[in-house]
């Protein structure tokens, strides 16, 4: 994608602003480092950001650390611990983490004005900072660290504090650190398969494929089959609504192969749904972005009844499609939904059902809420805003004030 592709969506001024900011950073070498070239949100964002930064005149690179499978088992464990999971890193796991980091330190080219390290896997590369006098180091945390496991956090903290600045995705992830903490929420790409406009025919063919009828209101929750997304609670919500409004429910999401729990959750969900023909449980393969997009666009109401969340990009996607969204007030969701302004927040099954009924019975209110939600996402959570925040972050490395004339 090129910057000009985004102009019809965000407007010429937004693109012009990006160019103006970038002109003040011209030719700076920005070296992104993460742990994987494909798969996962970080790689997806970097694959889109790097060419756009280059188009803007920076010299952006994207490098991936080299590591063996066992290293990733350790970092997966570390990742879960940062999410708050109870576990303990053993000495041999710590040794493997550090040895892999040291090997990469020796072999990687880390020259550049801005070294932008993503997530914990490559974190120890910052040891090179003292040898590279003119470089500025940024550590970008993409993980929910609102309630991290203490051992995991204490292990990483001395490395984080060697960076010049850290970046987190939500205010609730803020930590006590002796370096600056910048808030940069994630974003969605309006031109990706998951979010681009679809024709009526594409939407209808997806509905036919899944056996969904068009003459009943449709409640949709998109998320993997995980207890933390409360799919059983979603069925309870549907049943409370169904007493008064003849509607359908779609629960659609992937079942991760590395998550044995997901098939257990899926079978419990199927059992709870019973033989109700209006409940559609769809375990979709990973490459189903267009179908997911179609289901969201066909929805009358979108739910995200999570018990815990990171940022919840499924909420961003729903709002971007101008849908009324009812979601739990957890994780990054309150950042996206201001209750009764850009969507509705709920905290209980009964409360969620109450709001869904209100929306289905008041289509004009639902429409207005959805439109406000789309506008809010347009202003705050699209890729171009993310790019602008990165440019401002880079500029902030060279200016140490709260009001900066550039």
């Amino acid at each position, binding site marked *: 994608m090129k910057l000009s592709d985004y102009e019809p969506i965000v407007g010429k001024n937004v693109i012009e*602003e990006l160019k103006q900011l970038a002109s003040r950073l011209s030719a700076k070498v920005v070296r992104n480092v993460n742990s994987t070239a494909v798969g996962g949100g970080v790689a997806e964002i970097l694959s889109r950001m790097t060419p756009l930064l280059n188009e803007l005149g920076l010299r952006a690179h994207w490098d991936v650390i080299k590591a063996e499978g066992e290293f990733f088992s350790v970092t997966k464990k570390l990742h879960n611990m940062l999410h708050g999971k109870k576990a303990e890193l053993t000495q041999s796991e710590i040794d493997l983490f550090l040895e892999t980091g040291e090997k990469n330190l020796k072999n990687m080219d880390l020259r550049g004005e801005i070294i932008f390290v993503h997530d914990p896997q490559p974190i120890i590369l910052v040891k090179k900072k003292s040898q590279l006098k003119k470089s500025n180091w940024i550590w970008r945390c993409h993980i929910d660290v609102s309630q991290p496991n203490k051992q995991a956090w204490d292990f990483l903290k001395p490395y984080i504090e060697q960076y010049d600045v850290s970046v987190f995705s939500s205010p609730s992830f803020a930590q006590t650190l002796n370096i600056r903490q*910048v808030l940069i929420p994630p974003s969605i790409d309006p031109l990706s398969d998951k979010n681009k406009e679809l024709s009526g025919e594409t939407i209808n063919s997806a509905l036919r494929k899944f056996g969904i009828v068009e003459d009943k209101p449709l409640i949709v929750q998109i998320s993997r089959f995980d207890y933390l997304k409360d799919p059983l609670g979603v069925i309870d919500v549907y049943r409370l609504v169904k007493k008064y409004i003849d509607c359908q429910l779609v629960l659609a999401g992937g079942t991760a192969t590395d998550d044995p729990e997901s098939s257990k959750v899926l079978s419990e969900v199927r059992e709870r749904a019973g033989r109700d023909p209006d409940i559609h449980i769809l375990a979709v393969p990973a490459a189903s972005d267009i179908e997911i997009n179609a289901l969201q666009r066909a929805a009358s109401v979108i739910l995200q009844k999570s018990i815990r969340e990171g940022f919840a990009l499924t909420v961003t996607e729903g709002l971007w499609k101008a849908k009324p969204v009812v979601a739990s007030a957890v994780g990054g969701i309150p950042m996206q939904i201001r209750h009764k302004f850009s969507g509705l927040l709920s905290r209980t099954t009964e409360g969620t059902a109450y709001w869904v009924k209100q929306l289905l019975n008041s289509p004009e209110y639902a429409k207005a809420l959805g439109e406000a939600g789309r506008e809010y996402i347009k202003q705050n959570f699209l890729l171009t805003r993310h790019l602008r925040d990165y440019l401002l972050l880079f500029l902030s490395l060279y200016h140490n004030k709260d009001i900066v004339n550039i």
Partner: protein
Amino acid sequence: MRKIKKAEQPFTFYTRLHLQELTGRKARGLKELLEGIRDVSGSVIYHHTHRFLQQHQFLSPEPPNDFAYWITEILGEHKLGEELASIDTIQFSSIRALRNKLVETLEKHIGQMKDTGQGQFRVSTVEEQFHFVKTVSFILPSGYVARDIVEFVEILKKVTIDSIYFHVFEAKLRLEKQMNDFSYWIDTSCADPELAQKLSRLDPYTHTLEGLRAKIVNLVGKRIEEARV
């Protein structure tokens, strides 16, 4: 009738872009919130009283400031929330003065709760606690310069809402100028105190930024029409 004069000094349109920084400071109840409001930097107060204007600029009327929203929606203190939401921000020419008003309003409410024996202060869950965030502003020229009010109004129609935001809100309150930049220029460089006064009287906090743009374009446009008759 008044002729349109060339301005003594041209008006340079600037724009501003914001980066948000986390402070790590949190509050779960009114007392912690009050302590936070007393201690944090002016850039934090600015963030929480003006963020809505930027992020929800398309809504009218805009939702209130972050403090009022959190106190109303999370703590369920509706009376205090309304008092904070209705603080007339336009009256204040410095963040310091605005902060004092917020502190005074919170202190009064907490005092009343104690006096009436309502000592049970509500607290939020950990998930919904208040996080103090600050705004770092980057100010840059937009590339547009007006030499009279005719050029001014044409440029005003096409600059970003960030530019309008900067000249109306940020210049006055954060940079502590006595009036918004548009009024000041029209008064001092265009020698039109009457029009300047009209722009000064607008309460920008009760308009969306697009609504404000339309209002200013309309007022200045009328003055141009009068001069052409």
